[in-house]
C-alpha cells in the first residue's frame, strides 16, 4: 500500500458518522460606497502611505523626496525605469542590494488596505521581500470591497505564487512594541496611478 493510501485508510476508518454539509458563503458587500477612501484609511492603519499621482514622473519626484538615499532602484514594471535592470537578474539573491522596489499591483482590498502581488508582478519574488522599501503602483479602479470579493479574482490555479501585502513588514515580538521593517521592507508606499494602455504588437 502506498503511503497516501495508508493515510486515506486511516482517515476513512475514523471519519465521524454524521456528515456536515458545505455552506453557502455570502460576500457581505454592503458598506461605504467609496472604496478608495476605505482602502486609504486601512492602508494608513497598517503603517503604509499613499499618494495620488497623474503620471509616472510625478511619482518619481515624490520618491526622490521620501527616499533620498535610495541608490539601487529595481522596477518590475516597464512604466518605471530603475537603476537595476530586473530583466537581467538571474538569481533571487541578487535582489539583496535593492533599496527600493517598484511593483505594479493588479488588486487592492478596501477592507484591509492590502495589495495583491503575484510572481508575474514581482518578476523575481524575492524583490518584494529583500528590498529595503517598496513602492506599489495601483489603479484606483482595481480596488475591491473585501476578502470575499478579492478571492474571486486571485486565480490561484494560474499563479504559482501570490501574496496579499498589508503595509510594511512588522513585528511586535520585542516587548510588544510595534516595529516596521522586521525582516522585509521597512516602508510601503502606494501610488494611485491608472494602468497604462495595453501595448498591442
Amino acid at each position, binding site marked *: 500500500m502506498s503511503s497516501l493510501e495508508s493515510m486515506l485508510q486511516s482517515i476513512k476508518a475514523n471519519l465521524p458518522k454524521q456528515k456536515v454539509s*458545505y455552506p453557502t458563503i455570502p460576500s457581505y458587500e454592503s458598506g461605504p460606497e467609496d472604496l478608495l477612501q476605505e482602502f486609504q484609511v486601512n492602508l494608513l492603519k497598517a503603517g503604509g502611505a499613499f499618494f495620488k499621482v497623474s503620471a509616472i514622473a510625478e511619482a518619481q519626484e515624490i520618491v526622490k523626496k521620501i527616499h533620498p538615499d535610495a541608490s539601487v532602484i529595481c522596477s518590475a514594471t516597464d512604466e518605471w525605469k530603475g537603476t537595476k535592470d530586473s530583466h537581467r537578474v538571474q538569481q533571487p539573491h541578487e535582489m539583496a542590494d535593492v533599496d527600493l522596489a517598484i511593483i505594479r499591483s493588479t488588486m487592492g482590498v478596501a477592507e484591509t*488596505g492590502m495589495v495583491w502581488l503575484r510572481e508575474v508582478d514581482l518578476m523575481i519574488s524575492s524583490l518584494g521581500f529583500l528590498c529595503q522599501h517598496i513602492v506599489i503602483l495601483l489603479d484606483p479602479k482595481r480596488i475591491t470591497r473585501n476578502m470575499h470579493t478579492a478571492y474571486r479574482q486571485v486565480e490561484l490555479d494560474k499563479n504559482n505564487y501570490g501574496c*496579499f501585502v498589508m503595509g510594511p513588514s512588522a513585528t511586535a515580538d520585542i516587548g510588544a512594541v510595534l516595529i516596521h521593517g522586521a525582516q522585509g521592507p521597512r516602508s510601503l508606499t502606494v501610488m494611485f496611478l491608472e494602468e497604462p494602455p495595453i501595448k498591442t504588437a
Partner: protein
Amino acid sequence: MSKIVNIVKNSSDFIHLDNVHEPMHDKNLWAAKTSREKAAAEVPEWEKLRELASQIKEHTLTHLDEYIMQFTHNAEKRGVKVHFAKDAAEHNQIVYDILSKHSVRSIIKSKSMLQEECGMTPFLEGHGITVTESDLGERIQQLYGEAPSHIVMPAIQKTTDDIAKLFAEKIGTDPNNKDAKSLNEAMRNDARPKFLAAGAGMTGANFAIAETGTFVVCTNEGNADLTASIPPLHIASIGIEKVLPKVEDLGVFIRVLTRSALGNPATEYTSHFTGPRKGGEMHIVLTDNGRSRRLGMTEFWHSLKCIRCGACMNTCPVYRRSGGLAYGATYSGPIGIILDPTFDQTKYSELPYHSSLCGSCTEVCPVHINISEQIIEWRKIMASHRLMPRGLAAGFSMADIMFKRPALFRLAEKMGYWMLKIIPKRLLYIKQNAWGRNRTMPTLAKQTFQDWYRENQKKKI
C-alpha cells in the same frame, strides 16, 4: 512511563520569578484580547463568519479523505512533490532525506507548530544541519533554547531586558541597548546573511486549498516569503486538518484569523503557494501524527477545527498568569489542554485541571470549538484512569465521604473553623501552601450558615 508535567509548580515558578514578568505577560495578552473584541465588534457579520468557519471546517473534516486526495492531485499537477507522513518520525525522516539528497547543510524556516510538534529542529540538528528560525519571536526562543510559549507570540513571556541580555550574549549587541527598534535592527542584520546562504527554506501552512492545491502562510514579518523566495528548495509541513475545500473559503478564514489573534484585520503578509518558484523545487509533507485517530474520538474531534489563532490563550485567566512554558508541551493554553493529552495522556494528565472552567475560551473561539466542555471530558478520562493530580484526588475523595454524611460534614466544618483560628499565621503562609503565597485566607463568618438558619427559623416561630 512519561514524566507527568507539573503545571502547578511550573506556573508558580513563573509567577514568583519576580514582580515584572507575570504582570507584563498578563498585561500584553489582555491588550491582545481587548483588541480582538474591538476588531470583532467592527465587523457586522462577525458571528455569521464564525458559524461559516465552523461549518466549513466540520464539512471538510467529515469528508477529509476526499479533500486530501483532491489537494494532493492538484498540488502534484502544479509540479509539487507531495509526501505523506503518518507520524513525527516519518515527517522528520522525509524532510531529512530531501535535504540530504540536495546536500543541504543549513536551512531557514518560518514558524510551524507542526514542525515543533514533530521535534524537527533537534532531529535535523542531530544530523548536522543548521536550522535558523526566521520569525523574530521564534528566533528569540531558539537562542534561549526554549519552545515557543504562545502559538502566535512565541516570546511574549520575555521582557525587553531579557532580550537585550540574550542578544548581547548571542549576537554581540551592547548589553545596555534596551531599545526594541535597534534590537530588531541587530537581528535583521544578523539574519540576512543566513537567509541568503540557506540551502533550503521550510514553512508550515495555515490553510491548504483542495480545489487548487494551494497552501497559505500568514506572517507579519514576510519571513515565510523570504524563506520561500530565496533558497532553491522549499519544503512545507502541513497537518492533514489544514485542508479547506475551496479558494472562496479563504475569504471567511482570513477575515477571522488575525482579528481573533491580535485584533488586526489580517497579517501583513498572506502568502499563497501553488507551485515552485521560477527555477525552484517544492515539496509538501502532509502529516497525520495522531490527527486521524483524533478524528475518531467522538468527544474530541472538533479540536481539529482549530486554526491556531491563540484567542483562547489570550482570554484565559489561568494562561495569562501561568505563561505558556508552564504547560511543558507544544500547545499551551486552553487549546493545549485539549490537544496535548491526545499525544500523551499520562504526561499531560494534569493539564485539564489547569483551568477555572470559566468558558471564555469557548466564547472567543472563531471556529466554535467547545473547548471548556472538552476540558471537562478530559477530566473525566483522567479521573477514570486514576490520573488526577494526587492532591486533588485526595481532596475529592475526602469531599465525597463528607458530602455523603451530613453529620461528618458539620463536624469538619466546625473543626476547620476552629483550626483557622488556632493555627498561627506563620504556618498558614508557609511555602508549601501555594494558596497562602498569593492570597490572604478568608475571614470566616461568626457562625455557619446552618447554625444561622436554625437560629432564625426558631425566631420566626
